[in-house]
């Protein structure tokens, strides 16, 4: 097994000289990182009886914001109202918000210790920064909508449901890979 040292040296001119001067550390072996990730997931099940998540926390925050901006509108909407009733004060919905704050802290800590903190825009050599950010927003929006339709994203469905052998999660996971491979060809310009 060889670890591919595919260190994505940020090529944006916005990279601070300090970060560029120090060579970022190589990424972990994928199988070692996978075992680590699996043990974290197992810990979530043993401690809480539930798995990991990401898009659910975004839903809580969005519903909270809609509730602040237009309380009557949010209450009249079945989707937002459910998150508000479950609500920010409700531990099971707030749980994901705390988890996601942890995800960002953990990512930051690992990135900092590996010398990988850098303000940059990741893109292929033929892609403009502006174009890349437009694609990033559009891709994010599709994922937000898709995750709500599917009752979870790669974290809550594919990973967490994969480990419990949840039937719908496996269908979802196959569809994620199918969708991504189907569009990879037309999007080659963005990345290569």
């Amino acid at each position: 097994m060889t670890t591919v040292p595919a260190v994505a040296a940020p090529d944006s001119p916005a990279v601070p000289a300090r970060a560029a001067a120090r060579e970022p550390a190589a990424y972990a072996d994928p199988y070692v990182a996978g075992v680590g990730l699996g043990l974290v997931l197992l810990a979530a099940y043993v401690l809480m009886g539930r798995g990991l998540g990401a898009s659910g926390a975004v839903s809580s925050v969005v519903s909270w914001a809609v509730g602040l901006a237009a309380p009557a509108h949010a209450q009249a909407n079945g989707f937002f109202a459910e998150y508000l009733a479950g609500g920010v004060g409700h531990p099971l919905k707030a749980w994901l918000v705390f988890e996601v704050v942890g995800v960002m802290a953990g990512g930051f800590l690992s990135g900092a210790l590996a010398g990988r903190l850098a303000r940059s825009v990741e893109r292929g050599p033929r892609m403009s920064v502006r174009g890349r950010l437009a694609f990033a927003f559009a891709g994010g929006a599709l994922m937000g909508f898709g995750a709500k339709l599917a009752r979870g994203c790669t974290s809550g469905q594919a990973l967490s449901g994969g480990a419990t052998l949840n039937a719908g999660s496996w269908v979802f996971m196959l569809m994620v890979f199918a969708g991504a491979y189907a569009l990879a060809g037309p999007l080659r310009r963005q990345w290569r």
Partner: protein
Amino acid sequence: MNAPLYKFGAFGDEASLVVAFAVGLGFGWFLERAGFGSARKLTAQFYLDDLAVFKVMFTAIVTAMLGLFYLAWAGVLDLSLVYLTPTHLWPQIAGGLLLGFGFVIGGYCPGTSLVAAATGRVDGLVVVLGVAAGVFAFGEAWPLVKEFHASGAMGEVTLPQLTGLPYGLVVLAVVLMALGGFAGAEWIERRVAAHASERRP
């Protein structure tokens, strides 16, 4: 020990939020260690020269799956108290496809975009904002989508329950499939690397 600990009252709601942060910390740490704060590392999966996404994801699934299986077998963990998202076939097919499209367009999945944003990737932050916009759009479209969202209902069902096969047999099948997949992934990476070096002598 009776697990899940929270369900057996080993700790309360407030402590559960500390657990949430700690679990998130580990999740974010390993995603970043694996290189998943980088859109080019993630999307390389779809151009076949670096299959780390598949390797990490399936190693994690197999690790947690075996842990759940053996803890339940040892009588430590009550699997009936472990949360299962209900299966709704059609919206999960459609949502999976949309998420796959969004992944290769945006360069991250929702979880990895948070790690990318936390390590300074502006494109990662924009993906996070996009996800929020998509969730908002879904909420606004709720009256139109709620019927489809509820369609294809099959309840909380696992692959062993659905197929009638023993739990242990399905676990074994997934392990064998993953091992075969890893061997295949290593082979594909070597082929793609050899092909690339032929073109660039």
